[in-house]
């Protein structure tokens, strides 16, 4: 029998050791080391609409971005504030209906309705979620899952806001390029914005609320206030996604409250790598196109989709981004012990 055991040794790369969190760039090579991954993402996303073969696939890219907003919001709330929020559909619905109302009743153009729907929607969602903020863990998750269902049934039962028909005749973007690049640039802005936010002092407070909310109270800070700010950020992201979606489809209906918008961002976060902020966006870029490709299988589509999800979770449960970051920042070698 072979008694020799092997173990994988991991060593941080030199620049990583020296610059962890603080960049002191000393050569062109190190500059590349830091900027190339970011540039690949930014340039890649900007070029993507140009290389898509058809309008259909361009629309898929837009949908990916819609889900990316939600996944960013979910990752931020769950892994930096400690609130697992299943209310993606709620945010989409509120933002979407607000944009549709502003556009059809008052005739505001999309580039006006979207910012208003984002901010106002964020405020409305935060106000409605305010009573639930003292809840933690699975309780908060369950309550947020209820919100979209409640709103959907209210619209259906009272037959307001177009009832089951929805609001039709919403204006579209001026042309499809504006539509494409608007969502892509927004995703990039919020991606890097959130990464900056969680490392600011207020971001540290958010992370502290996740780690230990009692200690934050003992430090003389109102945790409900900070949770409300975080929920506002995440729900504004969701409302932005909803508003864009409504202007893309030129229609707003109760299907905006569909469970997809709550669940798919979570799957994307798990696959992409939780707590990395970039990971969830990558997760969306994998999951949504896969779901489109699988349309060829007809009704078996969901089966294959589930198989792929299961495979990811079983074999790469840490997420692509966490795996990738480790490979990028560390040397690995086998050593015998």
């Amino acid at each position, binding site marked *: 029998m072979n008694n020799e055991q092997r173990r994988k040794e991991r060593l941080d790369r030199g620049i990583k050791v020296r610059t962890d969190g603080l960049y002191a760039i000393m050569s062109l090579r190190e500059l590349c080391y830091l900027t190339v991954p970011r540039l690949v993402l930014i340039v890649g996303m900007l070029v993507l609409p140009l290389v898509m073969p058809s309008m259909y696939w361009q629309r898929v890219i837009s949908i990916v971005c819609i889900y990316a907003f939600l996944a960013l919001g979910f990752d931020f709330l769950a892994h930096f504030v400690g609130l697992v929020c299943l209310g993606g559909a709620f945010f989409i619905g509120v933002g979407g209906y607000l944009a549709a109302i502003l556009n059809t009743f008052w005739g505001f153009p999309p580039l006006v309705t979207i910012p208003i729907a984002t901010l106002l929607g964020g405020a409305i969602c935060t106000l409605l979620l305010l009573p639930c903020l003292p809840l933690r863990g699975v309780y908060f998750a369950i309550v947020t899952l209820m919100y979209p269902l409640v709103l959907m049934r209210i619209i259906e039962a009272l037959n307001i806001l177009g009832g089951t028909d929805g609001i039709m005749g919403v204006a579209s973007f001026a042309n499809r390029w504006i539509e494409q690049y608007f969502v892509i640039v927004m995703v990039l802005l919020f991606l890097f914005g959130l990464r900056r936010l969680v490392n600011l*002092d*207020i971001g540290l*407070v958010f992370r502290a609320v996740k780690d*230990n909310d009692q*200690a934050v*109270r*003992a*430090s*003389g*800070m109102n945790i409900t206030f900070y949770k409300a700010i975080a929920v506002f950020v995440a729900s504004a992201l969701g409302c932005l996604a909803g508003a864009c979606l409504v202007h893309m489809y030129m229609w707003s209906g109760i299907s905006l409250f569909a469970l997809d918008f709550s669940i798919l961002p979570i799957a994307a976060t798990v696959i992409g790598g939780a707590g990395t902020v970039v990971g969830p966006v990558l997760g969306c870029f994998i999951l949504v196109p896969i779901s489109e490709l699988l349309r060829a299988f007809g009704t078996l589509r969901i089966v294959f989709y589930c198989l792929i999800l299961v495979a990811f979770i079983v074999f790469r449960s840490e997420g692509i981004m966490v795996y990738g970051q480790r490979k990028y920042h560390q040397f690995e070698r086998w050593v015998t012990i």
Partner: protein
Amino acid sequence: MNNQPILQVQEATKSFGGIVAVNRVSLDVHDGEILGIIGPNGSGKTTLINCVTGFIKMTSGKVLFRGKNISGKPAHKIADMGITRTFQIMRPYYSLPCYKNLVIPLFSPRAKRTGGWRGGGKLGDRDTVGIDILEEIGFERDSFVPYKIASTLPTGYLKRLELARCLALKPEIIICDEIFSGLSMGEIASMVPLIERLQMDGITLIMIEHRLRELFRVANRVMLLNFGEKVIEGSPEEVMADDKVKEVYFGSEEVEEVMSHA
């Protein structure tokens, strides 16, 4: 010491269902003194300070801070006034490096108002201020320790980190919940001068403690709790001399037995 106590607790009572955890306990703490609270497990020490700091609501009774009624206020408001506490089970922010742990209290309204560490001036870079506080509390500045993730630290450092979190708020009162427990004799020996220095800086301390020897060395007054009621209160010498302490800690029969053998 002036006559107005900095903190007064009047007839504090807390009952959980039928169990009365704290029963009509009154105490006065004067400016700049160290009050020790002792008592066997389950005697209501931690519940009492949870009531004082607003982490749980009192069933009845009153807490006065500099003559102002603060009972029923939320915990963060009470901390904002300058009554800070450490936790018996340490509550650091495990995923953050030590000095980043202090950014959170330094970000609080109180720290912003009081203008930062060592008084006066605008609060500078919170990271730097955090490392300063850590050094003051016994983290070696030039070592890796202040930069390590809090979850990798041993108990001794975590206890100090708890104290540092209180200090970052520039408190008037620090309530230490078993700051010595779980520490080695060496660690305690280095902690005692720290407590004495805090007192010299004019901070009032309330210390819940099981380590009676060290507590009696630093405390000005000691109070004994048993079954949620105050048994005796007095100077450490008085309390040490009192038979009731042995009775509470060892049970009365045993004391009689020991006495009869002697």
